[in-house]
Structure formats: C-alpha cells, structure tokens
C-alpha cells in the first residue's frame, strides 16, 4: 500500500528539492547572519531565531554548486534532525505537496551535480516534474565538517 508523504518543496537553481515536512521547523526570510570564523565556506554563520542561536549553511555551497547572491525569494529553512538544528539557505521555498511513496525512485548517480549519497530518492510529480528528496542526516553529517575543518588548518 503506497503511503502519502508531505514534503516542503524548495529550489536550488533549476532543480526542485523536497524535505519531509516533519523535519522542518520553520521557513524564514533572509535575516542578518553573523559570520563564524574558521568554519567551512558553506557555513554562512549563525542567526538569532527568536532567542536561539542557530547555524546556517548555504545548500548550494554544501553540494558544491556555484553560490549566488541572495534575492527577495531566498529563504532559510530551519530543519531539525538528530538533535541538530540547522538553517538551509535556498533560492526559494514556496510549496507543500503530497507525494506517494511508490513514485519515489532510487536516485541516479549524479543529479543536478549533487552526489547520490546526499539524496534519498527522486519522485515524479505529474508528467515532467521531478522532485529530488534530500537525505538530511547525510547532508548534516558532522564528520565531513570535522574533516574540512582539519583541512583548513
């Protein structure tokens, strides 16, 4: 029996991505970000989310895509996974949709320049719309940051 999955849809460049709705705390407009020195380039810094300090990363930078200047559509999606709370900077976030889990396929090796290990699947919506689902625990894998930090020294 196929089950329904509610996902938040956001865009990075031409591609559309999805994160399960229960992992998203809020979606915020861009706000001032305080730089944290000696962190990987994709870590943009920390923000004050109603009294709580939360790190923010640029998803483009995280996936090795070219970083672009922020626009009016840019959003910060605050996700909470494995006791980590992190904000993702995305080009835009404007939809919540239901997808059936039997429409999700195993991701091909490289989608939109993103390594397959960061993805949990690709869902087909309608005839020509593809939604890339993120594997959040891999995206937020701390061991990779630690490696990058050591590399920077």
């Amino acid at each position, binding site marked *: 029996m196929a089950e329904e999955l509610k996902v938040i849809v956001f865009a990075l460049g031409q591609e559309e991505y999805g994160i399960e709705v229960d992992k998203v705390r809020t979606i915020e407009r861009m706000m*001032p970000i*305080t*730089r*944290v*020195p*000696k*962190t990987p380039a994709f*870590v943009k*810094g*920390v*923000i*004050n989310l*109603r*009294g*709580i*300090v*939360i*790190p923010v990363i640029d998803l483009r930078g995280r996936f090795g895509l070219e970083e672009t200047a922020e626009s009016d559509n840019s959003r910060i999606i605050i996700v909470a996974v494995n*006791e*980590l*709370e*992190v904000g993702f900077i995305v080009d835009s976030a404007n939809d919540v949709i239901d997808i059936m889990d039997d429409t999700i396929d195993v991701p091909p090796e490289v989608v939109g320049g993103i390594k397959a290990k960061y993805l949990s699947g690709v869902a087909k919506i309608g005839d020509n719309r593809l939604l890339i689902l993120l594997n959040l625990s891999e995206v*937020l894998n*701390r061991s990779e*940051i*630690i490696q990058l930090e050591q590399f920077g020294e």
Partner: protein
Amino acid sequence: MEMNQYLSIFIDEAGEHLQSLNENMLKLEQAPEDIGIVQVIFRSAHTLKGMSATMGFEDLASLTHDMENVLDLVRNEKLKMNSTIFDTIFQCLDSLEGMVQDVVNGGTGKADVSALVEQLKAIVRGEAPGSSAAASASASDKPMVATEMLLDQYQLSVLEQSIDSGLSVFHVEVFIRDDCVLKAVRAYMVFDLLEKNGEVVKSHPSVQDIEQDKFEKSFSVYYISRISQEELTASILKVSEIESVTVLPVDRSVLEELDQSKEATSQQSFQAVRETAAGAAATAPSGAEAAKPAAKAADAAPRTAAAGGAAASGRTIRVDIERLDTLMNLFSELLIDRARLEQLASEVRRGDLTETVEHMARVSSDLQNIVLKLRMVPVESVFNRFPRMVRDLAKSLDKKLDLVITGAETELDRTVIDEIGDPLVHLIRNSVDHGVEQPAARAAAGKSETGTVQLRAFHSGNHVFIEIEDDGGGINRPKVTEIAIKRGVITQEEAKKLSDDELNMLIFAPGFSTADKISDISGRGVGLDVVKSKIESLGGSVSVTSELGKGSRFTIQLPLTLSIISAMLIKLGSEKFAIPLSSIVETAAIRRDEIRDLQGNKVIQYRNSVIPVVSLAEVLNSPDYREDGEAETETVIIRKGDKMAAVLVDEFITQGEVVLKTLGNYLGNQKLISGATILGDGQVALIVDPNSLIK
C-alpha cells in the same frame, strides 16, 4: 504506562523524603531522647511507604514498612534508640536510596531487602541488645496478644474474611520438647502439615527465623484451617518430639480485640502528636510576647522550628529547567523588541509614547532580574548530603569529626549546582581522610580529639566562594615536594623556585597522591587533578592554603552563573565580538612604533615584562579590518594563568552583562569561539575565548 507521568514527581519527592530522613536521623543521633524528631522521621517514612506502594515499588514499600514499625515503637517509647538501631536504619536509608536511584535510571527499584527487613523485625521483637527491656515491658500488660503478634490491617482483613466465609481460624502455639536436637526440622514438619490443611497467615518468630533455628522452644501462628480443632491438635501431636500444642479458636470478637489493641497503640501516638503540636502552639505566642527564655519555651523551640521549616518548603513549585530556558529565550526576544521600541519612540517624539516605553523598560529590567534569579538554587541542595557522608566516613575511619556548614543559603546557578557536587565530595573526603588525624594523634598534638571540617559558602562580588577547612595535620610540603619530584611532576631545580602556595598546588597535579596507604576513601592518585579540571571547566578556580599541624583550607571560586557573563564588546570593522571580562586585565591604546619584532613574533613592553601581541582581526580573518594602517591601536590586555597577551582590536563599544548561548550542536566546539550572545539590536555577537589566544 500511565504511572509514568507521576514517576518524576515520585523520584523528586522520594529524594526529598530520604534527605529529610537522613537529616533527622542525624539530629536524632545527637538527641536520642527527642520524640519530636522521631515523629518527623515517622511521618516521612510513612509518606514514602505510601508513595512507593502506590507506584508499585514493593521492595521500597516493604522496607519502609518495617522501618516504620521500629519507629512506631520508638515514638511510643516502647523502644529506646541505640547504636544498633541507628546503624540498621541508616543502612535501610542507603538501601532505599539505592532503589530510588535504580528507579531514576529506569530500573524497577527492586533490591534484596530481606536481610534488612529481618534486622528490623528482630529489633521490633526486641532481640537487639539493650532494647528488650522496653519491648517486653509493654508486651507484658497484654497477656494473650503479645506486641509481636500484632496483625497488620491486611492480615486482619484476611482473617475476617475467612471467618465470614465459614472457615475456622486458630491461634496455634506449639511447644517442642527441650531435648529436641533438630528444632527447625520439627518446626518445618509442623509447618508442612499446616500448609497441607490450610494457610498460615502470620507466624512468630517469622518463618525464616524458624527455618534458621532462631527460636526458643515454642512458636505460634495464626492459621486458617480446613479441618476441625480436634483434628488439627491430633495431627500436630503426631509429629515426634512435640511436647504440647494449644489451639485456640479465633472468632470475630477476638479479631476486634486484636484490632483495638492495635488501635490503642496508634491512638496513643496520635495523642502524642497532638500534645506536641499543642505544646508548640502554646509556647510560641508566649515566647514572642514575653521574650523571656523560660526553660519550657526553650524545650519546645526546636519543635516549633521544625514546623516552620515544613511550612517554608511547601511554598515552592517544581519547574522543568527547560521551561526556564524557554522563558529566558522569550525574555531576550522581548528585550530586543524593547530596544526597537525605544528607538522608534525617540524618532516619533510623542510624550505619552516615550513615557509608556520608559515604563516598559523599567518593568522589563525588574523582570530580567527575576528571570535570572529563577535559575538560582541554594547550595544547600548539594551541601545537605554531606553531614551523612562525613558521619559514615568518620565511623569507617575511627575518627571523631564535626562538620560545620555555614552559608548553605548562598545561591548558585542551577547548572553549576548540578556539576559542583562531585568535586566537593572529593575535597571533603580528602579532608576527612588525609587532613584530620586519628583521635590519639590529635590528643598527642594537644588538639581536641574531635576534628572539625568547616564547609562554607559565601558571595563576594560576581563570584561565589566555597571553602573546605579542616583543623588537621596540614600539607607536609617537604613530603609533597619529594613525591612530586619522584613522580616527575617537577624537577629538583623547579622545586627550589616554588613558593609555599605553589608547592601546595602540586597536590592538584595529575597522578599525584601523598597518602602512604591506599584507602577506599581517597588516595588512588586520581582525584584532585580531576577536581581541579572540573572546577575550571565551570569557569572557576581552586586554591589551597595550609599550615603544618594546624590544618588546610581549600577555596573554590565559582562564577555566579554560567548563563550570564560580564563581557567587553568590541568591534572589528563591521563585526562585533565579546571578550569575557574575567580574562581582561586592562584596556589600553598602544602606538604602532611600540610593537617590536622579536624573531618574527610581535611583542610589546608591558609593565616590566615583554608580552606577545595578537591581532584579533588576523586571527579571526576579519573581512574588512586590519590595524596595520593605524598609528595607535586600541588594545585589550588579557591573562591566562600567569601568561599575558596584548590583543589588538578596532574599537571598544561597551561592557556589560551578556546572555551566553551555544552555537548549536552542528558547529560543535570551536577553538576560538566559546559561544554567542544576542545584542540589543537582535544580532548575534560571538564570544571570543581569550584562552585560545594565548599559547
């Protein structure tokens, strides 16, 4: 399970009752005649029993139940406290604590308490030395129903129901022949027979005691029988070596009598409670009016005080610490909005708006004080376990000790309180074990046999101090030096240069222990260095002063709170950073030409010493500021231990209290940044860790 929601309440309250039991037992040990204290202990034990039974922790309940039986005899003056009873009850408390701890850790709170239960039962039966006289005296005036054969409510109701349903109930007393060699075997045969034909409700002595041969020549049971009185008598007599047996039928009237005799005992105790209360009530007003310390008023005073204490503890509520954190976060949000409103009001320039905003500012700063105070807890919650610990330590070491606690009301942040317990335990154990000498040695040194350990807490400035002082032997500095050199902590040459205080601090070095013998209390060579690093991780420091033959004093200095620190806000171009004030020696402006180059390292002359210069902008990779072009640069002189450094910054903004926040789990521990804070304009400013700037 739906009980889960009550579990945390149970754990908290059980902890409190155990604490109060411990405290009052210690008080009682000082004044064994004070029945008032026994009453308090009894009530605590009773409540604990009820709670445990409700939550289904049967072992907890059964142990407290038997403790209660002992205490009941004591408060009715049928039993006098003696050291055996004290030790047994203290053991029970330990066992109870263990069980509660098990529950805390998600266990079932089960433990084998049968040994302790037996000990308690033995005390109730009056078998403990020194208590038999009182117990038997009370038993003698009720001929048939001996105190020890009193049935509890449950057993009574079982018997009642059996009678109602037509079964016969007997009180059977069996006498075994004097020349019988294996009494226990005969008794076992009788029990076997009884079990076949009915049910034994209560036996005296207990079945275990009988099995272990712990009885004289007779035993008695309450028995629900399926066979008649004659049959029962005959069948018991068939067992060899039985001298005689008396079988008395028990009917409702006998049961009522039994119940009443129990009632009478509790009635008596109620009477006692009422009298105590009345006495206290009567003396309190008269004492206040007359203020003449009459002998009677003085006698009643401790009881009145105890009653007052109980009332005070009732005026608090429990709040989850997370809720307080949420409150704190919401409040800092409010502060940010306040700053914005103030900004707007100054732009709009309307009298009543400005007034309202000003009023709001005043209210919110009061609110801030209260919110911060909510996190403060008296150190009492840590200190109150020490009297018991010192008592046990002193007993096991054969030392005589007084623990004097002062300043237990001093308040500390909850997070510090949670962490400070273990280091304190270690230091106190250290003082008791290594500091205070054996009574004989003390007498020889011309000191009183009883050693004193003082535990003090007090406020001073932005810090709380906790001192542990003993009047023992003090630190033997030559010996410390010798060991330190032997263990490779320092070299001979270094040792010569050290001051007395520095030599004392050697005992905090890793892998150091001066104890000649290894005891299980302290002295494994791990410990004091752990204490030191723990205290330092809390942002505090520890030091020791000592005089040989007179004693030592350990002083712990702790920050008032971990969530708020005093900091200097500085600017580097467009970015703002905070530097904790505790590390700042002073601020200065230094000229570019004062900075010299010493083998590639920049240094300046600072008060007769040469200290390194650190460019904060360079260390933090500031995107839009470098001090290179300036003729004169603002500088913060920081200190870490005895090392100092001059940190170049762009501009000082202000100094003040900032709320400390973590950067979140994702970024983990940063080397240069110890945390973040939220400024009045809602922006996040990072807090620089000055220790990382000094190599």
